C-alpha cells in the first residue's frame, strides 16, 4: 500500500479492490487505534482508495494510450509503434527447419501488410518464438512505413481494456481505437476462450480491419479449430488467411540460438558448451535461455571463464532434473503406452511391424532426449547392439520425412516427454 499523509488525514492507496477490501476488513480498526494513540484529541482520519502515490515503474514510452477511462481525454492516436519490442526483429530470429515456414510467411506479410495473408495465424507450443516473429513483422512494417500504426498486445490486455471501456461508458472509443490501426497483433488468443463478450467485440474489430485491408496477426498455442471455448465463426475466420505452425527447434537450431543469445550478452560461448546445454534442454527456447542466463550470471559472480566443466557445475541441478524426467525407462513406458503395447514387447526379440516401429521410435527418442550413448541405449533395449540403435535413428529420420503418420507420432511423443 502507498501512504500519503497530510495534517488531518492519512490516505492509504491499495493496488486493487481486493487489497482495499482486505485492509478495510482486517486492519482498519488497528490502524485507527494506532492513530488515535498518537493524538487522542485530534485523531487523524483514514481514507482508503485504489491507486498509487508515485508511478513506481514508468510505463514504456511507446505504450499505446489505452482507450477509456481517464485516458479518454488524452490524445487518442497512439504513437505508431505501440508496444513493439525493438529487440524482436527478423535479424535476431534464428532460423531453422522448425520455424522456416512461419518465418517465410511472416516476411511475406511484413512486405505486403493487409494483402493476401490476412490474418496471419501463427501457432505452436510455448516458448518457440511466436511472439518474436509477430514483433518482427510489426517492426518491419514500421521500418518501411514510419507512419503505420502497429499495435501489439496480449489478449488479456484486449479483454481488460474492453472491460474498462464498458465500465467507463467508452466502448465506442474502444471500438474506434482498435479499428483505426494499420496492423493489430494479438498474442495468445487462446485466452479469449470462454470470454464471450470479448470474442464478440473482437469479431467485429477483426472484420472491420480485414475489410479495411489492415493486417491482423494472431498467435495461439494450438491450431484454431482446436481451441475450446472459442466461437465457431471466429475459428473459421482465423483460417481465412494463412495458418502456420512453429515446431520445437532441432538440436542445431538450439545451438545456434544459444550462440546468438550469448553474443548479444557479449559472451563468447564455446561450441561444446552450447551443445552440452542444447542436448539437455529441448522443451522450449525460454528454458534454453534461462539455462544460458544462469551460466553467464554464475560466471560473472565467480569471475570464472565459461567452459564445459564450469557449465556442468552451474547447471548441475537442472541437468539432474532433466535426466530424471527423461530417462530411457520413462521413454520406454511412454512409447509403450502410446502404442498400447507392453514395455516387455519393446525389449523382446519380436520383429513384427507393430512392435519394431515403436521400438525404433523409442530408440531414436532415447538418442535425442537423453545423454546416453548408442551402446548404452542398445543394452537398455534388451541387450541390442549399438548398430541396431544407429539404424533405428537413421530409419526414423528418413520416415519422419516421408511418412506423415510417423512424423506426427514422433512429435507427439516428443512433446509428451519434454513438457
Amino acid at each position, binding site marked *: *500500500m*502507498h501512504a500519503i499523509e497530510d495534517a488531518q488525514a492519512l490516505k492509504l492507496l491499495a493496488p486493487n479492490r481486493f*487489497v482495499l477490501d482486505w485492509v478495510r476488513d482486517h486492519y482498519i480498526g488497528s490502524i485507527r487505534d494506532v492513530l488515535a494513540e498518537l493524538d487522542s484529541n485530534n485523531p487523524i482520519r483514514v481514507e482508503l482508495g485504489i491507486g498509487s502515490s508515485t508511478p*513506481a515503474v514508468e510505463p514504456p514510452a511507446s505504450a499505446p494510450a489505452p482507450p477509456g477511462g481517464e485516458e479518454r481525454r488524452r490524445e487518442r492516436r497512439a504513437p505508431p509503434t505501440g508496444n513493439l519490442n525493438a529487440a524482436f526483429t527478423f535479424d535476431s530470429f534464428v532460423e531453422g527447419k522448425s520455424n522456416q515456414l512461419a518465418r517465410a510467411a511472416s516476411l511475406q506479410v511484413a512486405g505486403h501488410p493487409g494483402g493476401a495473408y490476412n490474418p496471419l495465424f501463427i501457432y505452436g507450443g*510455448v*516458448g518457440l518464438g511466436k511472439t518474436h516473429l509477430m514483433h518482427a513483422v510489426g517492426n518491419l512494417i514500421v521500418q518501411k512505413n514510419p507512419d503505420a500504426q502497429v499495435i501489439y498486445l496480449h489478449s488479456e490486455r484486449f479483454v481488460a481494456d474492453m472491460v474498462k471501456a464498458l465500465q467507463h461508458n467508452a466502448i465506442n472509443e474502444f471500438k474506434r481505437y482498435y479499428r483505426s490501426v494499420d496492423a493489430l497483433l494479438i498474442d495468445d488468443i487462446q*485466452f479469449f476462450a470462454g470470454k464471450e463478450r470479448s470474442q464478440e467485440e473482437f469479431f467485429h474489430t477483426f472484420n472491420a480491419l480485414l475489410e479495411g485491408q489492415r493486417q491482423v496477426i494472431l498467435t495461439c498455442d494450438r491450431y484454431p479449430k482446436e481451441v475450446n471455448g472459442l466461437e465457431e465463426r471466429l475459428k473459421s475466420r482465423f483460417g481465412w488467411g494463412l495458418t502456420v505452425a512453429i515446431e520445437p527447434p532441432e538440436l542445431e537450431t538450439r545451438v545456434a540460438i544459444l550462440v546468438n543469445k550469448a553474443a548479444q550478452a557479449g559472451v563468447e560461448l564455446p561450441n561444446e558448451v552450447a551443445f552440452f546445454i542444447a542436448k539437455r534442454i529441448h522443451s522450449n527456447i*525460454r528454458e534454453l535461455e534461462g539455462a544460458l542466463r544462469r551460466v553467464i550470471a554464475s560466471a560473472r*559472480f565467480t569471475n570464472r571463464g565459461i567452459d564445459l566443466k564450469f557449465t556442468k557445475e552451474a547447471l548441475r541441478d537442472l541437468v539432474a*532434473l532433466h535426466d530424471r524426467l527423461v530417462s530411457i525407462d520413462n521413454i520406454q513406458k511412454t512409447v509403450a503406452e502410446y502404442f498400447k503395447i507392453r514395455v516387455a514387447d519393446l525389449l523382446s526379440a519380436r520383429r513384427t511391424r507393430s512392435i519394431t516401429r515403436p521400438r525404433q521410435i523409442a530408440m531414436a527418442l532415447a538418442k535425442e532426449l537423453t545423454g546416453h550413448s548408442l551402446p548404452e541405449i542398445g543394452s537398455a533395449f534388451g541387450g541390442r547392439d549399438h548398430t541396431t540403435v544407429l539404424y533405428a535413428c537413421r530409419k526414423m529420420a528418413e520416415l519422419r520425412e516421408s511418412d506423415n503418420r510417423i512424423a506426427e507420432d514422433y512429435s507427439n511423443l516428443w512433446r509428451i516427454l519434454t513438457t
Partner: protein
Amino acid sequence: MTATAQQLTLGVRLRDSARFDSFLPGPNAEPLAALRALAEGQGESPLYCWGAAGSGRSHLLQAACQHAGARGRGAAYLPLAEHAVLDPAMLEGLEALPLVCLDDVQAVAGEARWEESLFHLFNRLRERGGALAVTADCAPAALPLALPDLRSRLEWGLVYALAPLDDAQRLAALQLRARRRGFELPDDTGRYLMRRVPRDMPALFELLDRLDEASLAAQRRLTVPFVRGVLGEA
C-alpha cells in the same frame, strides 16, 4: 504503513529479523547477491529460488521486500501458501510496483485461476519493467503446473537451488542471528542446541528466540548448563 516502507503484507507480517544481513550466505551467496541486485532495481527478472522447507526461502523474499522498501522502491510480498484465504484478484495492479515477491508458488500449482492470473501478472510486469522474485519447494520443471505458458516463463529467468547448510554453517547462522539480537551464542552452546533439537533452521531460530527471552529474564548468559535447564523445563 509509511511512505518509506511500502511493503504490502497480507495475513503475515514481514518478520523484522528477515533481512539480507541476517541471512548467512554460506553456499547460497550467489542467489543472495542476485536477489539483492533485483531488490535494488538491477539484476535479472524473473528470479526463481527453490529449496526444501527451512532453506530460507521466505527469509530471502521478505528481506528483498524490506531492502527495496528501504530504498523507496515499492514491493509486494505474497505468501501463496495462504492462498486459501487469498484471491487471484489481488494480483491486479501489482505491476505498478518495481518488485513483486511470490513465496511458495507450488501452493497454487494446479489451480487454474491462480495459474492464469500469475501468467498475466508476469506479462504485465514484464511490459512495465517490474521485477519478479519467486520461491518454491522444487524447480520450475518439476512444478505440477497445468499451464505450460506459466512454466516456460518461470524457466526463463535465473533459477537457483538453495543449498542446505552443513553443521558448521548452521552454527554460524545461529550465531549471526544471536548477534543481530544483541547477544553472543558460544560455540559449545550452539552445538549443544543443534544436537538436542530438530535440525531445521526455523525450529532452531524459534528456540534461539525463546532462549534469548529466558536469558534476559534470568539475567544469565547462554551457557550449556543454563540452556539445559531451560530446555528441561519445556
